[in-house]
């Protein structure tokens, strides 16, 4: 270790850049080029802002998933959790418990964060205290949260009823801050906080240590179960933030809200360079991964030469090619 540092004295060049971390951004750039060939409107400000805003839900959920996966866990329940948290929040908004619409909204947001944290804590406790594999534990809670949502809505939709609340809440998805859509600001904030916690705090180092080798982490005195639990709570909070952006978009949830989002979030994390087996976490790569997923879908829809029946196949192929490009970049370094 000391040998290599002394052999290469303070000479920074592009070779020092971790290609693994850069690779997702290269893939994103290639996709942007591809998109501009497919349709001239692709690089338009409206389209890009639409697409990036759309990806906000998955991006924010995936920030949480980066923590869970880096610590060697997995959470399959996030899609159902979105539906569950959003439904309860809308029902609270409809209850009219607080007269002042602004206070009502703030209370609802706090409630959503609380429910999200509790849902995440439940996932964490089942895996750590209950000692059940995270795949099975969260598969179970995925069914539970989805089932409860279907029951709450009686299979139909849960819709916001007070128009003045809707009017007040709408800008949270459709509004802009200095020309930047608000959901993108939320993504940036979540990523900055996430990156700070993961890279700059003792807890962040513990997360990566637990993910790379649980036993070693335990012998080093890291409270493994507590670290794992907190990652699931972070995941729950991220889901709640995504819900806060999701609710104002259509103002309603249904039994199919958030279906398959868990797989999209996991794909975003892996495309972004985080290892599925744990031990490595890349927040900015994850955000990039979420953008890539949404942009692939957008390019397909804007193209005129792809049959609507083949969309899924080509999306899958593009994701695999993006991963292969990343791998080859890493091997060369």
């Amino acid at each position, binding site marked *: 270790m000391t040998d290599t540092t002394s052999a290469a004295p303070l000479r920074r060049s592009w070779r020092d850049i971790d290609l693994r971390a850069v690779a997702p951004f290269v893939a994103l750039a290639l996709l942007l080029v591809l998109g501009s060939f497919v*349709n001239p*409107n*692709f690089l*338009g400000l*409206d*389209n890009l802002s*639409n697409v990036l805003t*759309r990806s906000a839900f998955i991006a924010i959920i995936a920030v949480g998933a980066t923590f869970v996966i880096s610590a060697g866990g997995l959470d399959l329940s996030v899609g159902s959790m979105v539906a569950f948290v959003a439904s309860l929040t809308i029902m609270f908004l409809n209850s009219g418990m607080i007269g002042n619409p602004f206070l009502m909204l703030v209370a609802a947001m706090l409630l959503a964060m609380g429910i999200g944290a509790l849902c995440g804590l439940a996932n964490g406790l089942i895996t750590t205290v209950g000692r059940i594999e995270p795949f099975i534990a969260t598969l179970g809670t995925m069914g539970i949260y989805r089932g409860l949502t*279907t029951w709450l*809505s*009686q*299979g*139909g*939709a849960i*819709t916001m009823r007070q128009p003045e609340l809707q009017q007040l809440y709408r800008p949270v998805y*459709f509004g802009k801050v200095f020309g930047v859509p608000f959901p993108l600001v939320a993504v940036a904030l979540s990523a900055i906080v996430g990156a700070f916690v993961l890279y700059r705090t003792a807890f962040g180092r513990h997360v990566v240590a637990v993910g790379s080798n649980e036993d070693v982490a335990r012998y080093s005195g890291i409270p493994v179960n507590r670290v794992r639990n907190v990652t699931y709570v972070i995941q729950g909070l991220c889901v709640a933030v995504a819900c806060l952006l999701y609710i104002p*978009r*259509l103002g*309603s949830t*249904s*039994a*199919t*809200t958030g*279906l398959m989002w868990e797989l999209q979030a996991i794909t975003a994390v892996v495309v972004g360079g985080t290892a599925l087996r744990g031990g490595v976490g890349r927040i900015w790569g994850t955000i990039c991964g979420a953008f890539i997923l949404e942009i692939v*879908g*957008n390019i397909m*829809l*804007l193209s005129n030469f792809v049959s*609507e*029946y083949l*969309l899924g196949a080509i999306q899958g192929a593009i994701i695999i090619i993006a991963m292969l490009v990343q791998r080859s970049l890493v091997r060369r370094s």
Partner: protein
Amino acid sequence: MRKSIIGLTAVAMVALMGAAQAEDKKVTIGVSIPAADHGWTAGVVFHAERVAKLLMAEHPGLNVIVKTSPDAASQANAVQDLATQGLDALVILPSDPDPLVNAIKEVKDAGKFVTIVDRAPSTNDNSIRDLYVAGNNPALGQTAGEYIKAQTPDAQVVVIRGLPIPIDQQRQDGFDKGIAGSNIKVLDRQFGNWNRDDAFKVMQDFLTKHPKIDVVWTQDDDMAVGVLEAIDQAKRTDIQYVIAGAGSKDMVKKVMDGDKLIPVDVLYPPAMIGTAMALTAANFYDQIPVRGTYILDATLITKDNAKDFYFPDSPF
């Protein structure tokens, strides 16, 4: 002493009730439907329970048992459970018809009256059912197509499809038949998976891709929710109207209120389960012939008739 008086009263009451029931034939109808997993099936559950109450109030001897099942396998079990309770008739909306054929056939072979609703097995004849009640998928597309042809014969239309399954294809073929011979141009067709969020995305991309869109056909009320939101966000004024379908309370309300973007809706009602139950009950009580195939029209819901199809208490 007191005990025996109570005993006597009880005997008398049973005798009286027996006399009352004797006036009305005793019939048990089992209703097996999929569990509410999305808007339309939620409507089916709502209407099955609503009509069951109405029918039982009308015929004191009638007992209607409504059972919901989440998938085909548990529905097969539910049908067997219903059969052991001593049915006179089975009304079934199969979650997946072909795997359920044997369970249905068992009931039919035992000499019971069988009504299949909406989703037909590949051999749909009187060897498996007495009555078949269904909506009209090709007509759902055709009615929408003909409306567009009549209102805006030169329109540029974008289509949001459901999922790549036969029902969806039938609706598309019906639509093409409906607009045949006009100058209507279909700019694009993409799948929205009968899901609000996916339809929102697809519509956003359609709006980016096509500078001028006159009409949107989504064939489904749930998807229309996402489409309307996307149009509203883009502040595009070129879209004249959106045609959805099914008859959900939200869309029917918009038609009633004269919403410019939703002038009409095409009916594919979950209430058809009620049609099937009422016809089945009629077979026992009114002695009218009901065996055969009963296909509902894909009625065009307009401002004038919307109130007939509006159920504010339904989840759908």
